[in-house]
């Protein structure tokens, strides 16, 4: 395992400056920053961003995208997240679904979905978790049954973020019964239209009171053959590889950065020694984690497959996102209040309530440790 230091090229720095200038004009000075990639669903912002070429950056031009490098995407993502830009509408489709379509999708699927994703207009949710299936994905019970021209899908997905706002989700389900001794076989990914007949979406109130999670019940939902993503029976391999490389981006360590900036803005320059130590420690740690995360992006561009490194970055990065919240709560010595007039206090309250999700989503810390430990021993 080796994280190499990497320098941003003049073109990459120019891209950063461009995004920074865009955000300075696009986001009003008093805007309420979103915390992380799931912080705010704003289709208009997603479309505006797409017009600048900053959605679908990994998608090749022939599918409406921009064929940019992982480092270019890294630079754009970190600027957006640091500013607390509302990227929730397009982010999952862009980060996760588009690469899956590129790797595993048919030509028809790519032509159908990728241009819309790149335009910031087509949004995807993830369809993995179920009431009895969390980290153990192979235990999913949602079943697809063969019918003329396709499949009918029945089952229940939960914790489906933004299903009520999005267009599709890629459902992990059984297309053949579980085999003794090979529980990973027989799983497939089907692209399901969230507006199709038989799809019932109901809110599961989120810890902070917002509507973020949903239960998505599927009852004999017809999915045509051409909506099977990748090969039948390869679903497990697809979702795990999908997780691997999309793990270590700036969305895994910057979710709570806007809280820190809001604190400093309200606190002003005359900080105590104790407060300075908290600020300095968090900044030092953020810098160090950023070096690691950027290093993985560079390795991806070099054609490497840094799965262990990515797992390490996600594990350490998401814990940092949480540490930041607790360190500021202690430094501020206050009682967090979602309704506070202070932006810092309101953001702190939001962060306290939502930060437990950071070490769960996209692979729990415990699962990541297993992945990483196996890689270390190898």
């Amino acid at each position, binding site marked *: 395992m080796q994280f190499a230091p990497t320098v941003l090229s003049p073109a990459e720095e120019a891209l950063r400056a461009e995004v920074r200038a865009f955000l300075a004009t696009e986001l009003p000075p008093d805007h309420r920053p979103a915390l992380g990639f799931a912080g705010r669903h704003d289709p208009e912002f997603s479309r505006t961003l797409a017009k600048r070429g900053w959605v679908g950056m990994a998608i090749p031009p022939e599918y409406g995208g921009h064929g940019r490098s992982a480092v270019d995407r890294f630079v754009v993502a970190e600027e957006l997240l640091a500013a607390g830009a509302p990227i929730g509408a397009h982010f999952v489709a862009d980060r996760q679904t588009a690469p899956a379509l590129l790797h595993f999708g048919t030509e028809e699927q790519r032509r159908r979905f990728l241009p819309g994703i790149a335009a910031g207009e087509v949004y995807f949710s993830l369809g993995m978790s179920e009431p009895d299936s969390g980290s153990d994905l192979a235990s999913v019970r949602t079943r697809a049954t063969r019918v003329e021209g396709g499949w009918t899908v029945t089952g229940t997905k939960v914790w489906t973020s933004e299903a009520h706002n999005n267009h599709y989700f890629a459902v992990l389900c059984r297309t053949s019964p579980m085999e003794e001794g090979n529980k990973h076989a027989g799983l497939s990914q089907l692209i399901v239209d969230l507006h199709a007949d038989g799809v019932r979406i109901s809110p599961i109130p989120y810890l902070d009171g917002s509507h973020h999670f949903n239960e998505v019940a599927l009852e004999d939902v017809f999915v045509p053959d051409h909506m099977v993503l990748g090969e039948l029976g390869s679903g497990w391999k697809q979702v795990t590889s999908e997780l691997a490389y999309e793990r270590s981006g700036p969305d895994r360590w910057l979710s709570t950065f806007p809280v820190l900036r809001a604190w*400093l803005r309200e606190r002003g320059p005359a900080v105590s020694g104790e407060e300075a130590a908290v600020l*300095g*420690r968090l900044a030092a740690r953020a810098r*160090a984690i950023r*070096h690691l995360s950027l290093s993985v992006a560079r390795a991806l561009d070099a054609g490497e497959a840094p799965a262990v490194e990515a797992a390490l970055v996600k594990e350490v990065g998401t814990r940092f996102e949480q540490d930041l919240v607790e360190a500021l709560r202690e430094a501020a010595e206050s009682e967090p209040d979602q309704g506070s007039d202070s932006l810092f206090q309101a953001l702190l309250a939001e962060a306290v309530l939502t930060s437990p999700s950071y070490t769960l989503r996209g692979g729990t810390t415990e699962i990541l440790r297993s992945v990483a430990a196996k890689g270390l021993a190898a």
Partner: protein
Amino acid sequence: MSDDRRMLTEVATGLFRDLCTPEDVVAAEATGWSGRLWDALTEAGFPLVSVPEAAGGSGGDVADACALLTVAGRFAAPVPLAETGLLAGWALAAAGLELPGGPLSVAVGRPDDVAELTGRRFSARLSRVPWGGRSTRVVALAESGGQRFVVAAPIDAATVTPGRNLAAEPRDTLVWDDVELADADIAPAPDGVDTAALRLRGALARTAQIAGALARVTELTVRYTGERQQFGRPVARFQAVQAHLVTIAEEAQLAGLAAQVAALNARPDPAFDDVAAAKAAAGEAATVAARAAHQAHGAIGMTKEYELGQLTRRLWSWRDEFGGERYWSRELGRRLAAEGADALWPHISRGLVA
């Protein structure tokens, strides 16, 4: 890493592997020093890497010196490699003073240190000077008539009270009582040669050493937990132990990359932002990884002969030397607060500079 630096690292690794085994490190504790290793390093020109050739050094830059220090940290090398070149050698060369032979050390101006110069008469009390008693000269900054001077004070004129850090590396108290120095031992300190700059170099050096030690701690712990069997299987199969392994690897990589970026950005001198952040992060990494490594090793890690302890005792010392996590976090935080909220993200996102 540049090809030259990679070659330097490879050659140094070979040298330390031969002359700085865990047994050698244990043996050196009696005297706090390995003369055999020092002679070989001197032969190779390593102690004076980053000191210009024109000034009698070995050439190369700060990043080269830090690459060597990372290797030295990995092998727990009981010699003043950082102090001789990156600190003392740099200050002497900058002040136009001749480089004396042999190991050198440096006083960075601890709060309780005193150093005064009256004409050529030197009085000082300098505490916790690394390998002070083993050095030929100690470089200190002294005030005289409102001016700052670089002084290369000879050890044979000093009273030495031995002290040591947690790893039994010498950290001596030196006293010069109205000693007459030669002209060639004193020069006005040029701009930029001050206690802040020395402390920054010291902190960068310890960061590089911590990075090396942490890399080795990772290897040792992965190996040990893969071999050690309990309940009929290697302990590395247990999730609780895996969590320790991952913590150690993360902290080691995090400190290693921060150290490398700080060293590479030192062109020609280390920058405050880089070093403060790297030393604060490396200090925390040392703390967290050492705890996890001992937990994963169990009782064997508590024995003096086993290699882990040679490394963790250094980590526990180096994290505090030239400023601990709290010190550097506070200094960095003060600067960031003064620069304001809008400068915070540009600071964090400034990585390796082209």
